[in-house]
């Protein structure tokens, strides 16, 4: 092969290689730059330049026109000094970039950004893009606040806050970000989550007990620095509240449902959860589920049928065991069913009636008190007059001639009898009446009058109205609906609706999980429990940083790919022609056996060398950087391309053998043949372009 090229064509070949490498590098680098610029602009339009904005507010594009003025108003009023920009619309959402001024750069603001803009038409969420930042994702609710509190104390941390299950850490400067990242990593590694997965049928009560047992065991064995049950799930506060509400609802429903009280016969035994049946012509058949059993008394809940329309209690009805396929079994006792709702409604009606009567009663009482007071006053006057009369009688009885004592006695007796008959005042009526504490009676009457006055001031109409409102608000629930709802609440509280009952502990990170699991093996019921260890959170590079890192990689990848494509094209258009012609010339000048093989080997070697050189040079100069494709592999890939092209050169780029032979017969050199015959007849490419200046004809 060198023989062919040493005949003056070597310089041509050198020029071809240099130009090919330069052109290829420019094309590959240029193409990569164009793609990078396009995607970079798109990305910047999507998320802003790195660090330029702090948040992206997403608005549905249909609402954009209405949203932007509102958005601007909110900024002016609530975040004055903030800058914003409308970004591109993608996937039906317009992105509004928001840059916060320093005074609003705080955890509170970031954490509540969504609430600022929640009222904007078409609002569809907020993405935090502040840089420099570190994001810790997948942080369990039970740990978030602790992490935030600890991280905020780190140097170079501007603020930290939670958003969903992520913890965002905003930094002062990018310079120290790696150090902060290391500290956060260390912090995360100092904790671990231990998750105990329980069978689905685990009773909620059992979970509580098991958690306590596990904690005791772990504390005894490992004396952990941190051990905290965080089993409430992802959203602790709301779930806790919800559970509480459900408990209260269950209590209310049980109170509201028809009361079923069963008296069991001695020989029968029923269990909580067991179903019994009551056949009754008035209400239809009822199926009840036993709630509690206490010796011979049991309480139950109607789960099929409805006793809510009963106006009178069912008493001492027989109740039977319910067998599979709804077969009625033996009688287990008698049942009394009272419709509590009806009684409640009745009580409300009676209360309304009472209140209505109360008003009238108050009026009557007021009148009676007034009359009593008048009577008392009159009595008081009478008493005084009687006293005066008695004195007068006494004086009369003590005349100078001495009225006989008998007259006094007679008058006194007449007065006493008068009082006795009139008022039943005892043996000494005058004395008794004198003893009456009129003042106290007056006080009592005044007190009664005051209280009656107080009753009069009460707005009884309003109370009556509210009581009627309460009655109307009473839920119209059938017993069956109540029973099913209670069952569903029990399921939820037992963990079935949110599947996978589990216990989660926050624990020291340095306690080996296998050792922990091993130490709990002996616990009762532990064999059915699966144990997992999880990190408390994972540091994720911020989406924006990832995006821009990816973009920078994209440029290298595109350059690398374009290099490879370019080399293949160069071989197809240019090099294959040269390789094929050179091999033919070599074949013609070769003597001896196996000429074809002997000429093929140098051709392939030359092709491999060309491919390696071209691809390596173009790849490196264009900044190609395909992951996992190091320099050596690039070299090998180039050799592979060249080898394949050399083997296929005859098919890829056939040359006119007759013309070559004619040129040889005319005494042309190899170089002249290549320049004048082979290359001009080949495909347009770099070689043909360069050759234009070198050929004579």
């Amino acid at each position: 092969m060198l023989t062919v090229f040493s005949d003056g064509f070597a310089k041509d070949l050198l020029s071809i290689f240099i130009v090919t490498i330069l052109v290829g590098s420019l094309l590959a680098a240029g193409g990569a730059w164009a793609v990078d610029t396009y995607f970079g602009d798109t990305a910047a339009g999507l998320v802003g330049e790195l660090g330029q904005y702090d948040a992206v507010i997403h608005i549905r594009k249909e609402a954009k026109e209405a949203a932007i003025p509102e958005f601007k108003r909110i900024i002016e009023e609530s975040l004055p000094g903030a800058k914003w920009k409308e970004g591109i619309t993608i996937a039906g959402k317009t992105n509004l970039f928001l840059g916060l001024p320093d005074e609003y750069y705080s955890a509170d603001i970031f954490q509540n950004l969504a609430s600022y803009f929640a009222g904007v038409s078409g609002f569809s969420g907020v993405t935090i893009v502040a840089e420099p930042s570190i994001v810790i994702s997948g942080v369990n609710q039970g740990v978030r606040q602790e992490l935030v509190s600890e991280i905020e104390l780190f140097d170079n941390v501007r603020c930290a806050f939670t958003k969903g299950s992520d913890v965002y850490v905003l930094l002062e400067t990018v310079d120290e970000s790696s150090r902060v990242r290391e500290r956060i990593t260390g912090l995360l590694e100092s904790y671990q989550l231990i998750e105990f997965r329980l069978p689905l049928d685990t009773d909620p009560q059992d979970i509580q007990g098991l958690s306590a047992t596990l904690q005791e065991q772990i504390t005894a064995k490992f004396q952990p620095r941190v051990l905290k049950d965080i089993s409430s799930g992802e959203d602790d506060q709301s779930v806790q509240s919800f559970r509480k509400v459900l408990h209260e609802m269950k209590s209310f429903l049980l109170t509201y449902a028809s009361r079923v009280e069963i008296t069991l016969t001695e020989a029968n035994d029923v269990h909580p959860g067991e179903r019994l049946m009551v056949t009754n012509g008035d209400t239809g058949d009822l199926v009840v589920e036993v709630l509690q059993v206490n010796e011979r008394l049991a309480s139950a809940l109607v789960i099929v049928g409805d006793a809510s329309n009963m106006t009178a209690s069912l008493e001492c009805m027989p109740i039977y065991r319910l067998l599979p396929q709804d077969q009625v079994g033996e009688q287990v006792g008698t049942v009394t069913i009272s419709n509590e709702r009806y009684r409640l409604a009745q009580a409300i009606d009676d209360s309304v009636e009472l209140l209505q009567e109360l008003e009238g009663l108050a009026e009557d009482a007021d009148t009676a008190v007034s009359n009593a007071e008048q009577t008392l006053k009159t009595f008081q006057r009478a008493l005084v007059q009687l006293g005066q009369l008695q004195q007068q009688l006494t004086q009369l009885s003590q005349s100078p001639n001495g009225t006989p004592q008998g007259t006094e006695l007679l008058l006194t007796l007449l007065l006493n009898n008068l009082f006795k008959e009139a008022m039943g005042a005892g043996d000494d009526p005058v004395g008794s009446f004198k003893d009456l504490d009129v003042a106290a009676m007056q006080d009592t009457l005044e007190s009664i009058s005051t209280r009656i006055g107080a009753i009069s001031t009460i707005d009884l109409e309003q109370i009556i109205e509210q009581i009627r409102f309460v009655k109307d608000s009473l839920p119209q629930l059938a017993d069956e609906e109540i029973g099913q709802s209670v069952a569903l609440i029990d399921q939820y509280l037992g963990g079935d609706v949110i599947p996978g009952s589990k216990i989660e502990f926050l624990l020291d990170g340095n306690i080996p999980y296998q050792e922990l699991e091993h130490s709990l093996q002996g616990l009762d019921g532990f064999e059915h429990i699966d144990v997992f260890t999880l990190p408390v959170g994972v540091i994720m590079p911020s989406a924006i940083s990832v995006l821009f890192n990816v973009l920078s990689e994209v440029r290298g990848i595109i350059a690398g790919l374009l290099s490879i494509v370019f080399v293949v094209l160069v071989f197809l258009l240019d090099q294959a022609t040269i390789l094929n012609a050179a091999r033919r010339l070599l074949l013609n000048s070769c003597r001896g056996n196996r000429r074809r093989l002997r000429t093929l080997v140098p051709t392939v070697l030359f092709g491999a060398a060309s491919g390696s050189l071209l691809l390596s040079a173009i790849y490196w100069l264009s900044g190609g950087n395909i992951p996992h494709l190091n320099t050596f592999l690039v070299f090998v890939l180039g050799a592979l391309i060249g080898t394949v092209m050399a083997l296929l050169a005859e098919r890829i780029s056939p040359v006119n053998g007759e013309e070559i032979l004619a040129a040889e017969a005319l005494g042309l050199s190899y170089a002249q043949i290549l320049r004048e015959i082979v290359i001009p007849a080949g495909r347009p490419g770099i070689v043909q372009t360069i050759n234009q200046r070198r050929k004579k004809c």
Partner: protein
Amino acid sequence: MIDLIKHYGKITALDGFMLDVEEGETVVIMGPSGCGKSTSVRCINRLVEPDHGRILLQEQSVLDMNRRDLLALRKKIGYVFQGFNLIGRFNVLENVMFGLVMDGKDEKLARDRAMLALSRVGMDESWQQKPAELSGGQQQRVGIARALAMEPQLMLWDEPTASLDPILVREVLDVMEELIATSNTTMIIVTHEVSFARRVADRIVLMDKGRVVETGTPDRIFEEPQSDIGRKYKRLLVS
């Protein structure tokens, strides 16, 4: 040409071929197809490299020449191909000038010599045409002109009429006869044209299976053939 041997794989094209040609002599090589006629001629200017043997040209060993000397030799040898072997992108004049220009000749000189050569073969009127626009006979005449333009000392004709129909064969043979009659150039002609051979040859060489089986003057070969090949050719001539 001494004891030339040439193999193409398992096929032996030349098996001890021997030939010597005097200066100015017209030698016609004949023989059945595949007997090595074209191979023997191509070995003379090393368009084909023999595997063994010697070729002496004016006492100089052709097979031992270096590349430069070989190229210089080829410029002195005109070669006319069976398939014309014209260069398709050149017109008639450019084809004929090509060798001269590549040899460094001045373009005007090259053009003049080319036109002269074309006029000798009767193709000077068609100098602007491309080979694809010419008939086979015309293309072959251009091929002849191309070889003549180099003013060779030796002309090699490799079955120049084999690709032509009988009418065009006549056309080319007439040109060849005229050239042979008017020049002193040494000529080695490979052909199947028996009548032509008898008319123009100084000596006829009969080949079979890669070697010379008989050689002699045309009269002697066709009247008193010594070999089977000779006898066959005699019969052809008579018929």
